[in-house]
């Protein structure tokens, strides 16, 4: 008799702790933490630092949960695109069912904990954000309409509103303006990326505007949304969250952003290919700075307020 046998056991992939962290999209989470924190600190009512800290943490966990649900649903197209192929699910590190379980469990956890730590309004907004991102955007709109980015941008725009609701327990003009700032900023930001990353989306069959309507229409849309964004961003400077610092920053950034969008609008494909999308790439870089500095300026106004320097007096 021999001991020799064939090992027919299928080895399941075992994820490391870092793979589960990657499932929560930490880079998106860091943006959510920043904007939610600005919303919280810009609010006219203060909260205890412990409650503020815990609330921001639960908002971040909620954002991570929706990221995990997105990775579970989108594993097939993530595997095709170079930018996303190394994500834990398409890379085979985390099983799809596990990603779903992590997403659902953390969604429920974050909403309940935010309701207990802060209030029902902020918890309801967080629940709606997760639903909007995971179901409306990921499952429905992303593969169906070239306006996916426009409507999906709403999910990324909610965090400052949630932060504001943590402090005030409600929704105000200022929190809606912060929402609109991210909401209208998203299309030009993503379409600039799509202009020089087109091949990836085309391969995955995602109906990006560049794929469905061509680059000319995308360029027109970038300019259109940027023109819409400028008065809104500058106008926010005259509300209670704005002030001289914000207004100065916003005026400079919007002038640069409009100039960039205008240059993108004027270009044709031949020129772009000749200089390897130089203008589009620099516009994309500027868009990141644009959002970061606008929220940074709102934060600066809030930080100066106790010294009688922030806001309009």
């Amino acid at each position, binding site marked *: 008799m021999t001991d020799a046998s064939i090992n027919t056991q299928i080895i399941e992939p*075992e*994820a*490391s*702790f870092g793979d589960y962290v990657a499932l929560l999209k930490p880079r998106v989470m860091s943006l959510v933490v920043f904007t939610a924190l600005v919303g919280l600190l810009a609010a006219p009512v203060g909260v205890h630092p412990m*409650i503020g800290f*815990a609330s921001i943490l639960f908002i971040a966990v909620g954002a991570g949960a929706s990221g995990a649900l997105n990775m579970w649903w989108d594993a097939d197209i993530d595997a095709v695109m170079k930018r996303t192929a190394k994500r834990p699910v398409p890379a085979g590190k985390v099983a799809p069912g596990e990603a779903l379980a992590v997403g659902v469990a953390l969604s429920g956890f974050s909403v309940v904990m935010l309701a207990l730590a802060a209030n029902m309004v902020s918890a309801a907004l967080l629940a709606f954000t997760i639903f909007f991102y995971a179901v409306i955007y990921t499952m429905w709109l992303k593969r169906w309409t070239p306006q996916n980015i426009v409507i999906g941008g709403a999910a990324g725009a909610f965090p400052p509103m949630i932060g504001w609701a943590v402090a005030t327990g409600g929704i105000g003009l200022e929190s809606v303006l912060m929402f609109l700032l991210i909401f209208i900023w998203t299309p030009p930001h993503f379409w600039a990326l799509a202009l020089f990353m087109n091949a990836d989306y085309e391969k995955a069959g995602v109906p990006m505007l560049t794929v469905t309507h061509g680059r000319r229409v995308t360029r027109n849309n970038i300019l259109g949304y940027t023109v819409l964004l400028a008065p809104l961003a500058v106008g926010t400077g005259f509300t209670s969250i704005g002030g001289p610092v914000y207004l100065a920053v916003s005026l400079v950034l919007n002038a640069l952003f409009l100039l960039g969008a205008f240059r993108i609008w004027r270009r044709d494909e031949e020129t772009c290919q000749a200089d390897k999308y130089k203008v589009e790439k620099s516009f994309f870089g500027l868009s990141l700075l644009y959002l970061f500095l606008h929220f940074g300026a709102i934060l600066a106004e809030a930080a100066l307020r106790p010294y009688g320097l922030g806001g309009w007096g």
Partner: protein
Amino acid sequence: MSFRATHELHNRRAGRNIGLALVLLGFIVIVFGLTVVKVTNGDPMQAFDHAPRPEMMPGATPVQGD
């Protein structure tokens, strides 16, 4: 008797267990912190208990030891 050498998989599992332990520990600290803040924030520590309690009426002077 000899022990088998630690496999890379064991290291990964250990890392996952330590990670989870730290997350749970962090959660305990946060819930404790939230509880302390909410209890000491000046909120009333008594609630309706099917019996009238004058000290809970608005404007009532605090009872000694309350």
